[in-house]
Structure formats: C-alpha cells, structure tokens
C-alpha cells in the first residue's frame, strides 16, 4: 500500500513539473528509451532456510539477491504535447551463490554441506502513461515520468543440495519512474531514471525438468520482486 502511494505522488509531481516547464524546444511525438542500471529489492528476507547453521553465508546470499541488474525500454507516444501513452518493458536479474553452507538435516547425527545458487529473472511488460517536459533555454533537458501497469513474469533458477529447480510465475505489477533526458541531438539523448517496481508472485510453478507442480505460496513465502532502480540510457526522439 505504501509503495502505491509513493508511486502516485511521484507521478503527480512529474505532471506538475512538466506542466510548469517553459516550452522552448519542440516536444517529440515519439520517445524511445533504452536504459540499464541497478536495482535494489525491497524484500527483507532473512535466513529462513530450516536447519541452516552458517547463517552468515545465507545472509550474504540474500543480500546478493537483493542487488539486481536492471534493463528497461519503453516507447511513448506523446499525443498531447507533454503527456503520452506507450508500452514499457523491464528486465531485471538478480543472482547469488554461496558454497559450503552447513545445514542440519535433523537426524541428530550429520551436517550437510550444500552449495546454494539462485538466479532470478523478471520480465515486465505493461501499458505506460508517461510525461515529458523540456526545461532550459535550449530545451535540451527533459523531465520525464511514467507509470506503468502490466504483467510480470518471474523465472527463478535454483540450485540446492545437488538439485536444480526452475520456478516460474506471473502476476500483475506496476512500475513508476521519474527521470531526466539530455538531448544532445534533436533525435538523440541520454537519460537517467529513478524508479520503483512493485510486484508479488503468489502462485508459482516448480519444475525439476521431469516433474512440475504448481504451488500457491503463503503470504510470508511470496516472492517479492518490488525494488527501486536507478538507470542510465539512450533516448531516441521522433519529433
């Protein structure tokens, strides 16, 4: 609920900024954006694996999994000078690996040594409402914002105790961003974006390659892909 609130605030702030900007350079009709950067997941997951003795390692693993590589791209058609509609695609990837993690199997006799490896891929595609407002004398700088809603696909590759698992799932998600473009050419620019993504996965499909099962996750087990991200990218404008 808090995330949705802040996304709404960000969107309206952007709209206000754009609305008050002095228009000196022609606002593009189509804006293409491709960005890459880093993200940081909000999910504060502790070492919740049963029996893990070396919790420092699993803590480190989860910290790794909170740091995401973020790619995104969008196309917005600015149909009303400063506002537009378009589509947005987001991809982010997190991964982590820890070796020689000690686990108590509960037989009161042994310790098990496992290597943990996890790679999570998230693809989001959604309808996006965006804003663009040029500022400055030469209008080279444009303030941007967008609010996207769509469907997110999760793909999580797990390796644990010698077993490889693929977990997939999907759910509706949202993304909100604000940013700034610098147009060094009438058709080209670079931009920086700060955004937040909100997405949860409550139902997943787990497969080991031979057997597949669907699993509905309890609230405390849901995969929380929500994150904040900072990206840099290229912009292409069609005036």
């Amino acid at each position, binding site marked *: 609920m808090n995330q949705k609130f802040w996304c709404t605030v960000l969107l309206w702030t952007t709209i206000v900024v754009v609305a008050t900007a002095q228009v000196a350079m022609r606002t593009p009709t189509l804006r293409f954006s*491709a960005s890459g950067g880093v993200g940081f997941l909000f999910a504060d997951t502790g070492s919740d694996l049963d029996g893990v003795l070396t919790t420092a390692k699993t803590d480190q693993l989860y910290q790794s999994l909170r740091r995401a590589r973020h*790619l995104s*791209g969008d196309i917005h058609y600015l149909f009303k000078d400063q506002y537009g509609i378009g589509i947005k695609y987001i*991809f982010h*990837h997190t991964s982590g690996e820890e070796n*020689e993690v000690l686990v*108590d199997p509960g037989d*009161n*006799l*042994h*310790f*098990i*040594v*496992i*290597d943990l490896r996890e*790679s999570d*891929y998230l*693809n989001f595609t959604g309808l996006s409402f965006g804003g663009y407002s040029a500022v400055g004398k030469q209008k080279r700088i444009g303030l941007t914002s967008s609010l996207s809603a769509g469907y997110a696909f999760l*793909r999580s*590759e797990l*390796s644990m105790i*010698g*077993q*490889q698992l*693929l977990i997939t799932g999907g759910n509706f998600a949202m993304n909100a961003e604000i940013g700034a473009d610098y147009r060094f050419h009438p*058709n080209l620019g670079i931009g920086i974006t700060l955004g937040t993504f909100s997405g949860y996965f409550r139902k997943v499909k787990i*497969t*080991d*390659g*031979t057997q597949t099962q669907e699993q509905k996750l309890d609230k405390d087990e849901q995969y929380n892909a929500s994150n904040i991200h900072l990206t840099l990218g*290229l912009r*292409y404008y069609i005036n």
Partner: protein
Amino acid sequence: MKQVKITLLLLSLLSLLPACDDSFLEENRKHPESYLLDGVLYVNPTSQFTGVTLTLSGLHGNRYKVMQYPRILHFASLHGEIDGGGNLTFDIRVDPFESTVNLEPLQLGTIILDISDFGMLSIPVVHYNPGIPAAAITPQQIDLDSVSIEKVFNISNWAAGYLFYRLTAKPEWIRLQEQSVYEDSFELDSTRVLFPHSQTNYLIIPDREQLVPGVHEGEIILETNDPEKPLLKVTIKVVVRTFKNPDTMIPLEGMVIDAEFDKQSNTALLITRNPARLIAYQPDRNEKREIILERNPYSMQLSADHQLVLVGMNDRIESFRLSTLQRQESFVTGFIVTDVSDGENGRYYLSDTNRELFSVNRETSELTNHSATPGENRAEGDVLLKMKGKPMLLLSRKENSANGIYLVDISHPDGAKAVKYWYSGYGTWYWTTEDQRLLFSTHDGKVYHTPNETTGEQIRESGKFIPFDSEIENFYYFSSFDHNAERKTIWGAYRSIHWMDRNIVTEFDDQYYNRLRTITLNDYVFSVGGKADYYKTMAHYLFTTRSGERLLLVKNVDSNDLTTDAWHLETVNITKE
C-alpha cells in the same frame, strides 16, 4: 541511425537469452555413481586436527567436496584435491564424547564426498572401544603323544576388555575346535572374541594319518589385541607310530600260565599253553630258548638251588635244568598240579585242584597226600611258598576270599602238619622280598611281615604301596611284585581296569614304600581281522634283573573289546640317568 536501432534491439534480445535457457535442469538427470568405502574410519576424540588419507587407486587430480559429515567431526577444509598417487587427504578433529567399552562399534555417521569425475563416496565413521583385555593361554606345551585323540588348551581374559584373537598359524595336522561348541572348527585367519572376565577351552585334535612315523612338532599362534601379549603360542608335539612293535618286545605264542625269574642267572622263565612250552629268556644276551612240554603246564617254580625248573602239569611234575632246559625228572601224579615247591628235604610239594597238599619223594617217586586225613592239623591250598632255610610251607587258596594262610610244618619228611592258620589273604600268588621277610598283597598293595610260627593272631602290617594318588584306595590292585635287594626297590605291576586308564608299573623304595617313579606301559601292536592297531597292555608279571638295570614285563593286551592272547615279553631299560 537505422543501424543504431538494430543494434539496440539486438542487445536487448541478447540480454534476454540467459533468462530462457532451461538446460541447467539437465543436471537433474545426471545421477552420480555412489560408492561405499570398503572399510570404515575409526576415530577417537582429538584436540588437534589429524590427517586422514584414503588411497583411491585410479584417481588422481580429481577435486572433492565434503557433502555430509558426522556432526561430531570438524573438517579443516571442506574441499580438496586427490594427489598424483591417488591419495585423498583431509584433516579432521573429533569432539570429545563418552566412550564406553563395547563389543559393537559406535556408529557416528557417514562422510560423503563428492569427487569430480567419479561420484559420491560414502565413508562410515565409527568409534570403537573394546577395552584392554588380558590374554593368557595354558598350557603352552601340549604333548599329544602317540595315542591321544585330543587335548585341551585354555584361553582366558580376566580383564574388563574384549579379547580378540586370530589364528595365524597352526600345524596342518591338527584341527582346533572350541570345546563348548558342537561341530566347531577354528580355521586359520579367523578371528574370535572372548568377553571380559571369561575363558574358553579348545580341543586340539590331531590327524596322524597324514604324517609319516616319527615325532612332529608345530606351533599354534594366536594374534590378540592385548597390547601386553600380542601373541599367544602353544607348542604341539605328536608322535606317529610305525605299527610295528619294537625289538624290545618279544611276542609269546599262546597263553602265559606262570612266570619266574632267576636273579642268579638273570633268566626269565615262562610256561605257556597252546602251545605248551617252557621258555627261558636271558636279557643280557637277548637270548630266548624254549622247549615243548608234553602236558599242559599249570604251575612253575625254581628249585631251592636255582638249578632246576619245576613245572606242574596235567598228570605230572617235571623238572628241567635251567641252563639247558633239558628234562631231569618226571613224576606222574594222576592229577593236575596247581602249584609246586621244592621242600629242600628230598621232596617236591604240590597241590591239586581240590587244594589238597601232596609231596613226592624225588628218589622213590612215592606220592603222599598230606590232606587225606581230616583233623586239626589238616592243611589245604593250591598256592605254595617254601620258607627259605626253614622246614615250613605257606599254603593259600586262590579262589577263596579270604584266601586263608596255613603255616605247614614239613620237618618230618613223611608228614605235613598245619601249625597255624590266619583268616587273611594276599591274593592268588605269594610275592615276597628276596629274603622273604616281607609279603606283598595283590589285593590292596599292603605289605605284611611274612607270618611264621611266632606270629600271633594278627599278621603285622609294614606299610602300603600307593601306585597313584586317589581317594578310592579300594582300587589299589596289583598283579605282581618284584623286589630288588641290590637296588632296594620294589616294583609293582598295577592290575588295570580299562576305564581307569592306569596301565602302569610303579617303583617304590623298600623301606618306606614311597613311590619313586611310574612307567606307563607301551602299547602293543596286534592284528585283529588283518588290521594292525595299538592296544593298551597290562603287565601280569614283572621282574628286575639282578643289577636292577632292566625291567622284564610279561604283558598281554588290556582291551575291553579284545579278549585274546597277545602275550609278549618286554624289556624296559630302567637305569636312572
């Protein structure tokens, strides 16, 4: 610009590629080989890391990871690499834990190693504390001699630990069997355990058939976990016989009826039936002479001057010269002569089967029946002993109990008068010291002062021969005695009973009758049904040579199953070293 667009598009697609590759799931289809180490890792609590090395032939350079380990262990490193020699080495430390003495190992868990290009290797980890045993074995030397079918040795463990013992060596010609286990066989290289504070017996069973005649020795060696006695040894000796009698045994044909020994000429004299023979054997020359008797003999005695051999026969008495065995005299009696004695008064005294006492005049051949007239002085008997230097005879009865003893006065040549009688007995023969001062009883081994005309109602005892230590004195039976005045010893031939396994002759001193030595009689090879075998023997007569260097034994086989005549004369050297 168009190129830029295409490039951006391609880069975007490439970034998505890793997110769509499911090939990593193929790893799940690979099932690594699992191996169980042919052995276990024994551990004890250690405060320091200790190296453990496994040699895995065929592997070198493979990396390994520890996948599982008992929680009581600590690894210095959970991964490593097998060296060029196939040695997989890791360092472990073991937490302290309570260790109690137990026969079974304490299972601590399993180490599982994931070895690259090989598979999973499981290593059981155990702790073993059998305690400290105290091994002992007795006896350490066993003589199976030539006849023993088995003998026993004992292994004991009088300590709180378990004793493990492994049979590492034994002669091929013995078999070992735990005495308390039916049809057991303790084989080479097998290991057994003895519980704390316990013992067990093993039978040693020889197999002489695979051995050549002679003496064979070998060793039983047991390896133990007793740090004080890691090896237990028992020396085994066995004798394999030749199934031939030695030259010291001279077979005698027929049944020996009586035997005498003349110490003056060192000559043994024997009479036999079937065939009826008189045999003289001179041990110094190992010379045996014999003549055929015309009648079956029943008794024999030397003349008082040791020149003649008197033989009581069926229907007559005959005398033979000792030196030549030539017949000297022959007196027809008309009855079986059960005993004969030289009266030293020109008469031979003799008895018949009715225990009547006769005498025959050597010059006239006149036969006188001294028992014919009933009365107070009538004497009877079928065992005669002439008192040396006295006109006295001692008479006794073989088959009566008690035998009874008559003292008979023969001072008058034509008469024989019983002057004393004692309700007592000493067996079927009179055996005395050389000077006849003492008389030995074959009934119970007692020694008596030979009775005479001055002896009162009771015949005085002098002592007793005890051939072996036993609580049952009734079994002190003897068949014969020999006194050697020169050696001052008395030999007694024990009249064995099969189940008592006392086939012995025993030497006593002639003053206090202390037992000096015991000789177990040699077995005798005898063929029954064409199969030769060794049989236990019993000495019916025994004599020492004059100087006491040899023992002459007149023996027969002593077998419960075999009632036959296998008489033989054996010479035993009894010179003391």
